[in-house]
């Protein structure tokens, strides 16, 4: 309860600062609209359904792209961790992909797929896979080798060892990898939606883009806030349960 109060007070103070800036600063309201103008836009967009629809379109793309990215990235990352040869090949490739900002995939995606959903998904997947592979393989390599040794003496080898020891032992790193992947997927999708104009669905990125085209700063800021809030909520909904599970068992998560 106390934590909720502190958090609310912090964000209320930020908004108050923003409001004070618009009153005292003398900037044009076209460049810096007051908080209530943004709230008004958001309320309007919520009522006419455009905000909800855009959010759903975006989330659908995000979840599909992210799921595919993780399904490719997790196994690849685990495989990468098993040998130096894989690290020097798959690992190097993944590191290269991760270094490449996902915006850089957009020209290629547009030429390959045109203005389509596929182009959008492609960018998200390429943005996700590299970071998931890197985080997972780094994680799996930092499992204390003694777990595998002790399991082998108890007759656990091969598949049994992987499912009952290596995978659970790497859970903390898998969660880190998936979180990292999520952040990258979210960034990639926003880049894709801002640059790829398609008619099959109007996402949050498009709303942001058209806000700029129309010089509607209240829309630009409003949509940015929505993107932040969705990111935070997704983090809580998707990863917090896993983290609680882990912290309880590993005894981690409390810095005192």
């Amino acid at each position, binding site marked *: 309860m106390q934590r909720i109060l502190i958090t609310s007070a912090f964000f209320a103070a930020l908004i108050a600062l923003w409001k004070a800036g618009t009153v005292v600063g003398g900037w044009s309201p076209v460049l810096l609209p007051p908080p209530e103008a943004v709230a008004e836009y958001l309320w309007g967009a919520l009522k006419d359904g455009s905000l909800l629809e855009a959010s759903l379109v975006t989330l659908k793309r995000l979840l599909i792209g992210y799921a595919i990215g993780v399904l490719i990235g997790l196994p690849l990352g685990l495989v990468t961790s098993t040998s130096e040869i894989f690290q020097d090949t798959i690992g190097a490739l993944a590191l290269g992909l991760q270094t490449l900002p996902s915006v850089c995939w957009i020209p290629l995606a547009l030429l390959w797929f045109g203005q389509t959903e596929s182009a959008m998904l492609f960018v998200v997947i390429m943005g996700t896979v590299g970071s998931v592979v890197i985080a997972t393989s780094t994680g799996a390599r930092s499992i*204390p080798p*003694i*777990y595998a*040794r*002790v*399991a*082998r*003496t*108890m*007759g*656990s*080898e091969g598949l*049994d060892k992987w499912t*009952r*020891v290596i995978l*659970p*032992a790497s*859970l903390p790193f898998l969660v880190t990898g998936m979180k990292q992947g999520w952040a990258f997927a979210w960034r990639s999708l926003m880049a894709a939606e801002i640059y790829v104009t398609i008619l099959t669905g109007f996402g949050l990125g498009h709303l942001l883009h058209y806000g700029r085209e129309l010089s509607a700063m209240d829309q630009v800021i409003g949509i940015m806030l929505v993107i932040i809030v969705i990111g935070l909520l997704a983090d809580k909904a998707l990863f917090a349960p896993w983290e609680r599970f882990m912290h*309880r*068992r*590993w*005894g981690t998560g409390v810095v005192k």
Partner: protein
Amino acid sequence: MSTMDALVAAPAAKLAVEHVSKWYRTTRASVQALDDVDLAVNEGEFVCLLGPSGCGKSTLLDIIAGLTPPDGGRVLADDVLVQGPGGRRLVMFQESALFPWLNVFGNVMFGLRRLGLNAAQRREIAEYHLNLVGLAKFKKAYVHELSGGMKQRAALARSLAPDPRVLLMDEPFAALDGLTREQLYFDLQGIWGRRKKTIILVTHNVREAACLGDRVVLMSPSPGRIREEFAIDLPRPRDINTAEVAAIAQRITSALRGLSCNVS
């Protein structure tokens, strides 16, 4: 209790280490860790491998466990050549190596999965061994909630539950405080008396070896060799603080000093 009886009644193992040698090669040099080591361990015997660090005692334990192949020689367990871990010679390490994603009960259950037992039998065996090490009340605790001594108790229960032929202990008490250690010496002797396992324990603590072993095998480093053996014929359970144990420890210590003079 028929499953329990069958498991408890399995006879202890005979173990033969024959002419085992091991080198560790790095890009620069090749170090001989073990040189022509011979060791025969009887059924139900408690053998302590004692020596300074670098004498290859942990390497020897790894080879007996089947975790590391020897470069020369062989190990026979029950007259069968050791070619891998295989699940019949379990190891307890200095750090407990308990699995943090499982609670204490889950850890003790881990090695029982592959023995062809049903769930009820597995639970019964796990409960029995948790009682044996005095952790029945902590079966639901997670690893980070246990003290150092409790972790080693849990690790002992986990190693004993699948009824191994041989229990290999690699300095299991080295990281514990003195009081906890002495309690565990006592408890281990009690458990050993009840389960009559063949135990090989690696240590660099002379008193610990004198207190626990039927036989203390002295090793010297560079390369690791077996140098001397002491049969210890004191009644059990032994208390590490008695004059008898101290006297034997004294004899072993002077033998160790003689070794290090010869070596250097």
